[in-house]
């Protein structure tokens, strides 16, 4: 568990009495007010005092989904609780909240991790999920119960499961970020995704795609070398028209073992050090 998620856990232990958490009550206990505002350029903001004892969470009134509003509020609570975030006076753009893009700056990632754990406590979810099966039906049901979005709930599943699976977020036919489970050890060449053979690409072309996990050519998502090791890759992609986005779930259902560290080391030993010098004075023969 990340430090930001641990903080969320401690906050929940101390202040939260309901599942899903009552964010209005939590804000009141922390000295925060929630204000819905007709903002155009940001989804959420925290205006706080330097001492961090009082603040206002501003959330964009026109956000349609209740789950996204809740995540935005939880994200700003994270900025308030994490000491070195308080003086940022954060104005959080739409693409930063509930995005799990590893290229976001540290505070935004931490606030998202805090919000995800606050809204989807991993200890509770470990018992609630069937972690041996990736299914959007299951994830949707949990999302409905906890008042969270599909992306946040899927991310929670991925952090808990041992299955080799991943979620990819694509906008306007371009993969933007992905989150994977610990056992998903394949490289996803994001700039080239979604490839033409994927169901996600079909959706972007306006064509139909399977309504549940279905086999897809491994090289539609994985680089050629990795794809050679995968016998069955399952994909389920759904359209999220409000964001011009497609959410994709991938599950490496059947694969050969990847080369182990030992075999990679053997390969390196086979290389002649004379050919691969630091300053590359000589080229391989």
């Amino acid at each position, binding site marked *: 568990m990340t*430090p930001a998620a641990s903080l969320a856990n401690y906050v929940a232990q101390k202040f939260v009495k309901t599942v899903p958490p009552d964010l209005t009550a939590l804000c009141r206990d922390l000295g925060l007010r929630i204000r819905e505002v007709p903002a155009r350029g940001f989804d959420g903001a925290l205006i706080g005092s330097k001492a961090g004892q009082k603040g206002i969470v501003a959330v964009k009134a026109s956000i349609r989904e209740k789950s996204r509003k809740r995540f935005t509020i939880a994200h700003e609570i994270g900025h308030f609780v994490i000491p070195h975030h308080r003086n940022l006076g954060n104005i959080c753009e739409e693409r930063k909240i509930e995005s799990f893009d590893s290229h976001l700056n540290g505070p935004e990632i931490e606030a998202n991790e805090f919000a995800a754990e606050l809204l989807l406590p991993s200890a509770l979810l470990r018992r609630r999920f069937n972690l041996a099966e990736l299914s959007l039906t299951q994830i949707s049901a949990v999302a409905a119960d906890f008042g969270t979005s599909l992306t946040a709930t899927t991310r929670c599943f991925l952090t808990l499961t041992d299955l080799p699976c991943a979620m990819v977020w694509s906008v306007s036919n371009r993969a933007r970020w992905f989150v994977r489970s610990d056992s998903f050890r394949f490289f996803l060449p994001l700039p080239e995704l979604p490839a033409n053979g994927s169901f996600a690409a079909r959706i972007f072309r306006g064509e139909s795609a399977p309504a549940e996990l279905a086999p897809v050519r491994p090289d539609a998502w994985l680089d050629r070398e990795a794809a050679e090791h995968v016998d069955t890759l399952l994909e389920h992609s759904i359209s999220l028209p409000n964001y011009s986005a497609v959410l994709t779930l991938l599950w490496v259902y059947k694969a050969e073992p990847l080369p182990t560290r030992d075999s990679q080391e053997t390969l390196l030993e086979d290389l002649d050090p004379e050919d691969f010098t630091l300053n590359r004075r000589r080229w391989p023969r």
Partner: protein
Amino acid sequence: MPRDKQPNQPDPERDLLDKLFGTPEEMAEEELDMLYEAIAPGTDAAAVVHGLAADAAVEYRIQHRLPPDHVQAALDATRDVKSLENLAPSRLRQIVDALTAPYTGAVKDPAYAYRNREGELDTHDQGIIDKLTDELREDWSGDDGEGKK
């Protein structure tokens, strides 16, 4: 402070003063919060303590001496958290434990160095933030938590 109450009747304020001028280490966290609130409303007690400890540490170092353990302990316990990485679980818990007794008084120095890396806010959004900043400056004590008295 009137001291005409019966000795057996609970009197939190009298007890607080007794502890303050007697044995302050007996003060509970809530009582410490009351004290900080009375002495310096709206200030960050940890930052004040850190400043005092840092000044003391400098005095020792000028004399080519190491700060004593209690000064070092005060520095460590109140050091500004600049990153969550490598923080011990006990320190994380301290951060949450410090979230007690929200301050409702007027804020004189709102933290308003906002960040918007993709560009400046337009005048419409800036107006929203300015209005909320004004609300933050107000004294919230005595309302229902949502701005209604």
